[in-house]
């Protein structure tokens, strides 16, 4: 059930409530063009570029998921590497039984989502900060558990079977397309989830949890849904990583279960702008630029990324996108509502400041 985009306001004046101040069709068309151009990348750029793009798309998927968790549901998870790592294993295990790794990507997403149910039951007993560390413990426990299973590589990991004899150029292109599809589906899911009833519920919880609860909002259920969706997205991203690296390396330092994955997704979101769909996109761009320019200096890019994230969390809480939004008042992915007076133009409304929906 979705909320209709134009409703009559109580006062009876001829006002209109819309999602966006300008025609959404143009934004939609723009997004479509961007996706089509990105899809054509393997034909027009060098394979080195698409290889970097695969990394960027993995980070973008992860960041979108972490943004959904922390920015919209207030769930600061520091254990998303659990689902990321499990996603990689959910590609490896079917591949060992002859399933094409590309075809296994939905399995990775679904598998991570299924695992997230019992884990939610455990970690949801704790709130905020303790929730954060509990997810971290959960990720460590899962990593230790996976390392005990010798048939999937134990503590050393395994190369990914299923690509024998495949043309490397073709493989690189397929990997890129897989990463692109995962990222587009991830962002699209977040967008449509937030425009649905769930988005309204999450906004209500974010503004005042007690009030939302007493108005009949099922707070726990909404958070569970977000947790499961985020697990699925991170799982799919982990699957893409396994395909990209052609192997699965376990371990909490340097492997798929490393907390650095969560650090990267969290920092990208905070730098770009927490609680906006555009934020993770900008944050991913910043991350990739830093990572590419500083990659010969080992861990420095993570140090700088962390310092920038701390500074932004304190001094510019809405991130880089927030700064842009303040200046130009733009929404590429409108998930909120605007109130229009009859005959009002964008320019006049901006002068008055955004009108809240009452």
């Amino acid at each position, binding site marked *: 059930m979705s909320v209709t985009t134009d409703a009559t306001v109580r006062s009876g004046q001829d006002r209109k409530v819309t999602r966006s101040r300008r025609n959404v069709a143009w934004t939609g068309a723009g997004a479509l063009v961007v996706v089509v151009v990105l899809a054509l990348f393997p034909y027009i750029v060098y394979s080195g570029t698409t290889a970097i793009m695969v990394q960027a798309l993995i980070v973008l998927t992860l960041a979108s998921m972490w943004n959904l968790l922390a920015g919209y549901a207030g769930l600061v998870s520091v254990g998303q590497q659990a689902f990321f790592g499990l996603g990689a294993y959910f590609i490896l295990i079917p591949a060992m039984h002859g399933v094409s790794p590309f075809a296994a990507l939905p399995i990775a997403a679904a598998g991570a989502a299924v695992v997230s149910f019992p884990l939610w039951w455990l970690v949801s007993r704790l709130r905020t*900060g303790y929730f954060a560390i509990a997810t971290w413990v959960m990720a460590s426990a899962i990593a230790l558990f996976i390392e005990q299973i010798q048939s999937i590589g134990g503590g050393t990991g395994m190369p990914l079977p299923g690509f024998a004899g495949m043309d490397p150029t073709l493989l690189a292109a397929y990997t890129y397309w897989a990463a692109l599809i995962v990222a587009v589906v991830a962002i699209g899911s977040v967008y449509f989830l937030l425009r649905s009833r769930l988005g309204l519920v999450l906004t209500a919880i974010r503004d005042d949890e007690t009030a939302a609860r007493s108005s009949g909002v099922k707070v726990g259920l909404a958070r569970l849904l977000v947790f499961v969706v985020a697990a699925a997205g991170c799982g799919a991203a982990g699957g893409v990583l396994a395909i990209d690296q052609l192997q699965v390396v376990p371990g*909490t330092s340097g492997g798929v279960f490393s907390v650095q994955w969560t650090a990267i997704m969290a920092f990208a979101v905070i730098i770009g702008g927490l609680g906006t769909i555009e934020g993770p996109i900008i944050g991913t761009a910043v991350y990739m630029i830093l990572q590419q320019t500083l990659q010969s200096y080992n861990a420095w890019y993570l140090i700088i990324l962390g310092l920038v994230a*701390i500074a932004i969390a304190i001094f510019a809480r809405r991130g880089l996108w927030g700064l842009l939004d303040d200046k130009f008042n733009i929404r590429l992915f409108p998930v909120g509502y605007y109130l229009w007076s009859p005959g009002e133009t964008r320019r006049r409304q901006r002068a008055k400041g955004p009108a809240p929906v009452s």
Partner: protein
Amino acid sequence: MSWVNAIIQGILTGGLYALFACGLSLLFGVMRVVNLAHGDLATVAAYIGIGIIAITHVPFLWSVPIVVAIMAVLGYVLQRSLIQAAISRGELTTLIVTFGLSIVIENGLLQFFTANNRGIGVGSSLISSSFSIGSGLQIAWLDVAIFGLAVVVLLGLQYFLSASKYGRLIRAVADDREAAQLSGANYQHVFGICAALAFATVALAGISYGMTTVVSPTTGTDTILLFAFAAVVIGGLGSLWGTLVGGIVLGVSQQIGAQINISYELLAGYIVFLVVLVIRPQGLTARRSQT
């Protein structure tokens, strides 16, 4: 006999875990700050200790008060600047800032000290000497000393918070900072002192860990933070003696796991943690839920 040995070892290790948990518990109890950089700060303390001994060649016991003092000052400064700024912006910002700090410290250590393991040079007589009970039981003096230190620190904190004048002030600020402020208490200063105290225990925890085994840049998150947290949750949030109980339960379950199969050591600890989370989310010692 090896089972008895495992249990005794577990109890003694539990003291160390309680020491880990002390600072985490204190910061949460007073300021409602969950410090995700807790473990990394303990690792920093261990590295400072290693550095001081390597550079100045002071005897080990002299380096301890120096490290504790440095960490206490760092705690006060960090609280008054970064953490206070984060607290005033809300819980989410606090988590993000301490998580950022954790990643920055860990990678900074990695950058400057490489991923190699290091131990604190205590002098071999202190580390290796042990006494035996019966035939098969060997107990290291060092483990006993650390357990004793943990008990002394917990007793001291308990006494300080419940009986001293300043402890009363800290509890007043923890209960209601606005009311305390109105009564003339500078709550930010009290928070700073509290952070200094917490960081002093963090320094002791880091040094103790560096003595019993080795530290590497990832020790802070892999071991110290997660064990401290597990001890806090098992024992019950917000209770100092609970952390000792939690630490001992965690230590004993790890040692029993290690007895079954050496690779189950960590996993056994986490399983007990998860079981407690399911059966008694308020912890073993707490009377009612404080989450």
